[in-house]
């Protein structure tokens, strides 16, 4: 941002030296900046102060510009002791010199014009620069021991007062103002002064706010990332370190963590939403895996909207996965779903102990009702193939609603 760069140059680290001061330490601070002895600056101020009084004005300006510093850490005077300070000081001196030259050679430029103008300029600069400095500081480091917001606000007000006062004085000294016009002109002067001061200030405030907002968003993102990594990955890692006697639990933890991290990284919020077949099936598998610890690999070909039928199909598939996880003792469960033209098929397979479907079907409500019944009610079908010792496979098929199948067919024949 050019604004910020400009500020870096214009607002040097003019730091009052609380450890080396006669009045406020401003002279010592200036001396630090310019690389000369503090005595030189002090003499210059006093001399200029006696010779017409603007040594005092200059000193006040420098004081308002400066920042209090911590003598112990001494951070302020070390911060960028670059040429900007010297330049600023030089520009100030040259300006005053020019003002005196103008006074000498240009009769109209008399005290009644020069002094109000000087006051006005100083006030303007202070108000604008301090205003920008304030916001910049607050955004960067609210707790860095910089002058408080209240002090900054006070400086802005002082600058504002000087500006308006300068305007009023300029008008009052130089025009023969009638009683009636005086108030109007004064009001105009005040408005002009405020506009002059606040215009750029408001501009910089807006700029600072935009930057500030951006910074906040960035830091919030970082915080969210840190929180997520801490809550999930680090916790899981420490859990794994402590459960070294239970490999199955470790695998379960690692898989759950992997899944969560993936879904979070992809930012699709996959878990917990079942608007689509794929999401629904993956969510169901994840839940069963979490509850029972058996890894479930899900492969889905195609996708479909989760309407009533698909939701029933998903519930049946979930039941099949639950049964496999509970009873099969298999090391892994494979789930495959394919959306073909007109129907969805889901296969839930394990290579575990298996069972005799005929013998068990009558007394296990989970299979008969939750899988078979559910599928049949909506026009689907369920086939359970199992033999003791050979594992189990549940085949589920559900016709899609006409709208959905049309969509799939269009995709399929392309």
């Amino acid at each position, binding site marked *: 941002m050019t604004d910020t760069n400009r500020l870096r140059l214009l607002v040097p680290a003019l730091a009052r030296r609380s450890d080396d001061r006669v009045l406020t330490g401003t002279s010592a601070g200036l001396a630090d900046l310019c690389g000369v002895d503090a005595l030189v600056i002090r003499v210059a101020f006093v001399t200029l102060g006696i010779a017409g009084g603007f040594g005092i004005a200059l000193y006040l300006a420098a004081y308002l510009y400066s920042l209090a510093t911590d003598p112990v850490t001494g951070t302020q005077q070390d911060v960028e002791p670059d040429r900007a300070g010297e330049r600023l000081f030089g520009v100030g001196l040259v300006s005053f010199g020019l003002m005196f030259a103008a006074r000498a050679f240009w009769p109209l430029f008399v005290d009644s014009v020069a002094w109000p103008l000087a006051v006005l300029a100083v006030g303007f600069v202070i108000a604008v620069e301090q205003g920008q400095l304030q916001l910049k500081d607050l955004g960067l480091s609210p707790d860095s021991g910089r002058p408080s917001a209240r002090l900054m606000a006070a400086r802005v007000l002082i600058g504002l007062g000087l500006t308006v006062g300068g305007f009023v004085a300029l008008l009052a000294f130089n025009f023969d103002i009638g009683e009636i016009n005086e108030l109007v002109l004064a009001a105009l002067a005040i408005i002009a002064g405020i506009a002059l001061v606040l215009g750029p200030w408001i501009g910089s405030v807006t700029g600072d706010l935009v930057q500030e907002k951006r910074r906040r968003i960035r830091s919030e993102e970082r915080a969210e990332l840190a929180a997520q990594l801490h809550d999930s990955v680090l916790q899981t890692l420490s859990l794994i370190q402590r459960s070294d006697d239970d490999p199955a639990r470790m695998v379960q933890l690692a898989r759950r963590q992997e899944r969560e991290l993936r879904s979070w990284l992809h930012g699709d919020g996959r878990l917990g939403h079942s608007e689509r077949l794929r999401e629904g099936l993956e969510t169901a598998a994840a839940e069963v895996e979490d509850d029972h610890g058996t890894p479930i690999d899900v492969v889905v070909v195609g996708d479909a909207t989760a309407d009533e039928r698909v939701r029933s199909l998903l519930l049946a598939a979930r039941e099949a996965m639950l049964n496999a996880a509970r009873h099969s003792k298999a090391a892994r469960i494979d789930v495959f779903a*394919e959306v073909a033209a007109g129907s969805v098929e889901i296969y839930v397979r394990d290579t575990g102990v298996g069972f005799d479907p005929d013998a068990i079907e009558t007394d296990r409500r989970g299979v008969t009702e939750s899988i078979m019944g559910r599928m049949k009610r909506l026009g689907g079908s369920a086939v359970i193939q199992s033999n003791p010792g050979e594992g189990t496979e549940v085949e589920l098929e559900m016709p899609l609603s006409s709208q959905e199948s049309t969509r799939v067919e269009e995709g399929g024949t392309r």
Partner: protein
Amino acid sequence: MSRPRVVVVDDHELVRSGVKTTISSACEVVGEAADVETAIDVICEQHPDVVLLDVHLPGGDGPAVIEGVNGRMVETKFLALSVSDAADDVIAVIRAGARGYVTKSIASDDLIAAVQRVAGGDAVFSPRLAGFVLDAFANNLPAPDDPDLDQLTNREREVLRLLARGYAYKEIARRLSISVKTVETHASAVLRKLQLSNRHELSEWAHRRNIV
């Protein structure tokens, strides 16, 4: 089966040592590499039977390794091994010439079997890869160059479906009443069709799929 000579390419040392431990009972690990350049050097030097290849590597990806050694050692086979389950990563490395793709969560026995199968010249399909391929061909990639080449036969589709359902080659053979060798032939044919199908359409498919 004789012990296949294997080079492990992965940029994570933990993964390399884990893989080495896993397969050392049945394979001879003759080298390892952590980036593309080293991998090409080691492979050209060792002439391994099989390279276990990570999909993502510093200095280029898995396909860069395959392309780097291509033509110099016809006898070396590549098996992709990755945590990535992004379709286009997987498809890219298969298209570059890898003979199969397994995920790093694969069981030890399955990994050894996969290495041996690849060493013997066959293709290795994890259920996930089978799903990707089915997905790709289910969208019926138009093949303007050679329509016959890019279509899967019904039998090939059947084999892929069973692979996606988690069946081993042996189980597929029994279920379809064919020999294991025939199953392997079908799998290799599918792989070849995938490698030869229209490049543009395929990457478009992979792109679309990742958006969905």
